[in-house]
C-alpha cells in the first residue's frame, strides 16, 4: 500500500465532514526548518486527517483545512517548538454532525 493511496482515502473520508474554513488564518503553523524532527516527520503518518505532508525539499508542510482539531500534533510537537498550535477562531473549523 502506498502513502499516496492512503492519502486519497483520507481525503475521501474528510469529504463527508462539515468545515467552516477560516481562509487565510490557519490555526496551526509549522515553524520553518531545514530538516524535520522525528516527531514532526511522524505527523506525516500519524495526523488522522493527513494535514502534514513532506515537500520536495524534505520539509514538513501543513494544510490545516481538513483538521479535525484532535490535538495529536500539539501533543507531539508543540513543546519542542516544531509547530505553533491554536484552536480556530470561534465558530470556525470542523463542525461535527454526529461526533
Amino acid at each position: 500500500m502506498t502513502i499516496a493511496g492512503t492519502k486519497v482515502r483520507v481525503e475521501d473520508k474528510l469529504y463527508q465532514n462539515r468545515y467552516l474554513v477560516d481562509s487565510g488564518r490557519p490555526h496551526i503553523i509549522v515553524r520553518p526548518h531545514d530538516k524535520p524532527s522525528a516527531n514532526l516527520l511522524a505527523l506525516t503518518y500519524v495526523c488522522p486527517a493527513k494535514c502534514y505532508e513532506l515537500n520536495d525539499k524534505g520539509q514538513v508542510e501543513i494544510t490545516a483545512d481538513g483538521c479535525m482539531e484532535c490535538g495529536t500534533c500539539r501533543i507531539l510537537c508543540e513543546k519542542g517548538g516544531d509547530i505553533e498550535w491554536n484552536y480556530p477562531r470561534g465558530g470556525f473549523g470542523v463542525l461535527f454532525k454526529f461526533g
Partner: protein
Amino acid sequence: MIEQFDAIVVGAGMSGNAAAYTLASQGLKVLQLERGEYPGSKNVQGAIMYANMLEKIIPDFRDDAPLERHLVEQRLWVMDDTSHTGIHYRSDDFNEAKPNRYTIIRAQFDKWFSRKVREAGATVLCETTATELVRDGNGKVIGVRTDRAGGVVFANVVVLAEGVSGLLGTRAGLREMPKPETVAIAVKEMHFLPEEVIGQRFGVKGDEGCVIEAVGTISRSMAGLGFLYTNKESISLGIGCLVSDFAATMESPSALLDAMKNHPSIRPLIAGSEVKEYAAHLIPEGGYRAIPQLFGDGWVIVGDAAQLNNAIHREGSNLAMTSGRVAAEAIIKVKSRNGPMTKANLALYKTMLDDSFVIKDLKKYKDMPALLHTNSSNFFDSYPRLMSHAAQTFMRVDGTPKIEKEKNTTAAFINARSRWGLVSDAVRLALAWR
C-alpha cells in the same frame, strides 16, 4: 460596563454542561463559553452514556434526551488477523424500565444537554474560543480572555471543562500538556444502515443495542482498542492507540481503521453501510498518576482536561459528568457560606471527588496504564495470536491426539514468552488489577 459572573464554565462537553447546569439550577450567575458553532460540534465520543451519573444531574432525562439504544449485550473480542475469540455477556435484565447504559450521538445529545443548561438559567455563548486565563496581581484567576472583540469576561471562579487538549490550563501552567504516552488518538466513522438491518445483524430488537470492543492484532502491537457501537440507524466504528505508539511505529490511524473494517469478523457487520462522518479525538489514558492539580485560586478543572478517564472500563463521560457536578456542588457550598473562591476553599472539590467512584476507580487501576503501555506487543499481539491459535487447535478435528494438541499449545505459549515471562505477566497483571 464590566459584567461579573459567579462562574465561567469553559467548554460545553459532558463535564462543562454538568457543571453549568448544576451551578445555574442553584441560582448562580453562570456564563458558559463554547468555541463550536453549536454545543457538540467539536465533541467526539464513541459513545456510551451511563444513566446513573446523568440521573444525578437531570433525573428525568429519559423524557426527552436523544438516546439511541439501551445496551443488552457486550462482546469483548480478542483478535488475530483472521479470527476473534469472544467473551459475550447478554442479559434480558438490561431490558428494564430505566436502562443502565445507552448509546448516544454526541452532537445531538450535547445540543439537548445545552438546552437544559440554558433552561436552568445559564448564559451559553457559542462561537467563542477562550484564549487565555486572566489573573490578578496575586495570581488568582479572575476571568477569561476570548477571541471576541473586547472579549474579557470576569467571574469569581472559572471551571476549566476545556477537554483533553484545552489551551487555558496548559498555557497558564495550571496543568502540564498531556504526554504522548498518556493520551490515545482515536478515529471513528459513522456507518449508516437501516434500523432493521442492524437488528438482524446483532440479534437485537426495538431499542436494544450491542457493543463490541476488540483488542489484538488490529492495533498492530500498539496499546489500543477497537470498538463498534450500535446506534438506532448507524454504527459507530473506531479504533484508538497511544499517541506515543503511533509516533514510534509511524502507523496511520486512518489506515488502521480501514484494516479493522476489512477484518473478516467486522466486515459483514458493516457491509453495505453509508459512511457519513470521519472523526478523530484524543482520549486521556494516563489514569490516576496523570491527574493534575484539580483546583487553585479561582479555578477548578474537570473532565478530560483533568485526565479523568477510566481506560480499563472505557468510562469517560460519566467521570466527566460527575466531576463537573461535584465541582459545581463544591462551588455552591463555598458560596453558600459566603466564602471566597480561594485555593483553600476550593480544596473541597477534591475532597468530594476523592470520596466518589471517580477517584476510587482510577486509584484502583493506577498501575494498569504503565503495565499495558510498556508491554503492548505482548498484550496486544503475542497473547491474542496465542489465544486464537489455542482455540483453533482445540476446535479443529484433524486426527491429532488431544494430548499432543495440548502439549503443542503449551509449548507455543512458552516459546513466545518463556515460563518466567508468562508467570511474571500474570503476576504483574494481577497486582495492577487488584
